[in-house]
C-alpha cells in the first residue's frame, strides 16, 4: 500500500485536513493498522515540497493549526498514472516455498511433509480470512477475498508441486 499515493487519491476526491485524511485512510485502507499522525503530516509535507499538493487555508482553533490540502495538477497526474498502470505481477518462482521444496529434495528431506504443513498453515489463514469475510462489512469481505484468492493460488501450486515431487527430485538430485 503506497501511503503517499493513497493520500493523494483521497485528496483528489476533495480538499481535506490531515485529520480527515487519516480517518478515511484508517477506515478504508488501514485494516487494523492505523496510520500514525506523524506519518500523515510528514507525507503531506513531502507532497507539498514536491508540488503535488498545496495548502489552501489554515483554520485556527484551540488545538494546532488545521491546514487544508488541495491536490495540484502534478499530483492528479500522478494519481491517474498510478491507477492506470497494472501492478507488477509477483515473481512467484522465487518464493521461499519454492526454495524450501527444492532444498528439501536436494537434502533428501521430506518435502511432501513440508508441503502438507504449508497447506495446513494456508488453510488456517484462509479460515481466519473467511471468518472476517462472514462477520465484516463488504469492504472487509473484498479485502479478505483478495487474500483468499492469493492463498488459493499458492495452494494450487502446492498441489501441483506435490504431484510432481518425484520428477523434481530427479532433476535436482541427478
Amino acid at each position, binding site marked *: 500500500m503506497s501511503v503517499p499515493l493513497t493520500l493523494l487519491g483521497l485528496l483528489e476526491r476533495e480538499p481535506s485536513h490531515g485529520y480527515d485524511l487519516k480517518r478515511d485512510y484508517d477506515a478504508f485502507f488501514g485494516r487494523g493498522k492505523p496510520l500514525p499522525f506523524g506519518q500523515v503530516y510528514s507525507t503531506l509535507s513531502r507532497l507539498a515540497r514536491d508540488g503535488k499538493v498545496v495548502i489552501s487555508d489554515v483554520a485556527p482553533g484551540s488545538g494546532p493549526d488545521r491546514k487544508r490540502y488541495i491536490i495540484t495538477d502534478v499530483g492528479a497526474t500522478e494519481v491517474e498514472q498510478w491507477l492506470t498502470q497494472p501492478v507488477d505481477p509477483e515473481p512467484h518462482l522465487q518464493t521461499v516455498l519454492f526454495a524450501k521444496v527444492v532444498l528439501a529434495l536436494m537434502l533428501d528431506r521430506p518435502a511432501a511433509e513440508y508441503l502438507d*504443513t504449508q497447506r495446513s498453515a494456508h*488453510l488456517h489463514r484462509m479460515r481466519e480470512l473467511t471468518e472476517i469475510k462472514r462477520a465484516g462489512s463488504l469492504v472487509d469481505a473484498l479485502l479478505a477475498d483478495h487474500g483468499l484468492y492469493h492463498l*488459493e493460488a499458492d495452494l494450487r501450486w502446492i498441489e501441483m508441486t506435490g504431484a510432481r515431487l518425484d520428477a523434481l527430485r530427479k532433476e535436482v538430485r541427478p
Partner: protein
Amino acid sequence: MSVVIEARDVEFSFGQTPALRGASVAVEAGEILAVMGPSGSGKSTLLHCLAGILVPDSGEILFDGARVHAMAETERSSLRRDRFGFVFQFGQLVPELTAVENVALPLLLSGVHRKQALPRAGAWFARLGLDGLEQRRSGELSGGQAQRVALARGLVAEPQVLFADEPTGALDSLTGEQVMDLLVGAAREQGTTVILVTHEPRIAAYADREVMVRDGRVNAPDRIAS
C-alpha cells in the same frame, strides 16, 4: 466435545480397484469438517461409508456409539432418513414436486403429516432468502436457488450430521460462497455436525478443520493453535 461419528481403519474397493486403504477419521459433535483431496483420492467414498450408503469391506463406522458397518440395510436406511441430512452437487430436487414439497420430503418420509411438514419446510424459505419461491419447480429455479432448496431439505429434519459432497461444485464462486455462508450459519445454529467433501480450498475454509484424503488414506494435519 465428544466424537459423534468415526471411521476406523476402513477399507473399500470397487471391484478390484481399492478406493479406501485403511482410512480413519473422527468428527466431533457440532464440528464442521472439510474432507479434501485430489480427484479419485477416495474422499467421496469415505463420505458414503460414513453415511451408511456404502458398507466397508473391513474396518468400522461408528455413529453415536452404534456400529453402522454392522447394521442391516433397513437400519442404515432409517439412520440416513432420521439422523442424517444430505446435500450433493447435482440433480437433487425431484422435478415433479414444488420447492416447498422438496424441502418437506425428509419429514414426509419420516412420517410427519403433510399439514405439519409443509409449514416447517416453508419456514426455511425466508431463512435462506428464498421467499416467494415455495411453489416453483426445480426447472424454474436458478442453480443457486436450487442448491439453497437442497440445503433446506438437508437440514429441515434437524439431522445430527449433514453430509455435503461438493455442495457448491456446480455454482459460480459468489453463489457458491453464499450457499456455504448459509450452510455454515444454519448448521451452527442447529448444532449440526457437517462433513463437507470439497476440492476447493476457499470452500474448505468455511470448515473448522480439514483432513486430506490421499490414496485412500486420511492425513489429518496437526492442529494449528488459533
